[in-house]
């Protein structure tokens, strides 16, 4: 239940086997078979996946092209298949659902809602966040693998909205998790949500490692 990172056990040491340098030629792909690197997925924590995958990919191509290629490739893949977490907080969740309905069809952008945080890289906070759900939101956020993004949809998620004076409401989800894109509206139209997703894609395109 506890969401605080300090309570977590220490991360398991990442074990990863790479072929010895002597077996590889510079700029050449390693041979299939014993020389192919493998990653012990179960030993990886979510935030360690990207460096490990990069290292594995980097061992396949030359040092020179690694810098120029991998970042854009990751960004291209990431921004064209943003999987938001499927959960409904409040009013904006209904507009979130409408954006996935027939008229706006958010799946045109490669946006497919998934129910498990392990499969997601985008959390759309669609509604009012109360203190009672705050630590569960942080848990879900931490369960998402890196790289991950957060969209604060609507003014409750942005700044608490009309409920920010209430005793039970978090005045803005950026007090809990880092937010990448804010969308104004109460609730925002589905078009505005799609515009937010396009803005996020622009951000990912310009992302530097």
């Amino acid at each position, binding site marked *: 239940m506890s969401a605080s990172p300090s309570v977590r056990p220490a991360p398991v040491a990442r074990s990863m086997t790479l072929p010895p340098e002597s077996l590889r030629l510079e700029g050449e792909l390693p041979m299939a078979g014993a020389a192919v690197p493998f990653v012990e997925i179960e030993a990886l924590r979510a935030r360690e996946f990207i460096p490990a995958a990069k290292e594995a990919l980097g061992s396949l191509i030359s040092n020179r092209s690694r810098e120029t290629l991998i970042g854009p490739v990751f960004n291209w893949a990431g921004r064209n298949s943003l999987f938001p977490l499927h959960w409904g907080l409040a009013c904006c969740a209904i507009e979130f659902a409408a954006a996935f309905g027939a008229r706006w069809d958010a799946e045109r952008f490669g946006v497919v809602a998934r129910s498990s945080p392990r499969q997601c890289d985008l959390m759309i906070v669609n509604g009012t966040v109360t203190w*009672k759900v705050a630590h569960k939101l942080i848990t879900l956020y931490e369960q998402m693998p890196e790289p991950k993004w957060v969209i604060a949809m609507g003014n409750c998620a942005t700044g608490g909205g009309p409920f*920010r004076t209430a005793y039970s409401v978090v005045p803005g989800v950026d007090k809990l998790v*880092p937010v990448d894109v804010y969308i104004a509206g109460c609730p925002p139209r589905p078009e505005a949500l799609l515009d937010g997703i396009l803005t996020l894609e622009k951000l990912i395109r310009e992302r530097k490692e």
Partner: protein
Amino acid sequence: MGPEELRAALAPALGPSLVGVEPFEGFAARVRFRREGATELFRAVHGLGNTHLSMVAGIDWVDHREVLYIVWSDAAKQYTLLSADLPADDPHIETASGVWPSANWHERETWELVDITFDHHPDLRHLLTPDGYEFRPLLRSFKIHEPEELEVKVRHV
């Protein structure tokens, strides 16, 4: 069923704990009672055909608190309002959940928001607020205010 008939039906069972039955807009009548006769009143009102309990509410009048029960009779198609005044320093009353099971959650909510204790309630826990929340938000002494400035989380990459 008008107020007079209701008084005639309730008075024998309740005796002195029935304070008054008066007409009230939107209701068949408003029955005011003392908390000592709560269970008898609930049984008697239920026996008159008011089988559906719609709502339990608490109001903080600063010097005392008021607990309201709104019941509905399918035969008469009317609501009846039951109300009891409780002292502010010791607000407690017998639970109605033995007579109307639907009172269970309404009383839990009234307990945690207006701080009215329901004796012999089967399951008096926090419902809307988190466990261990010590404030009673719907009391008049609880003021709402602009939230304090909290630290904004930024991404560390």
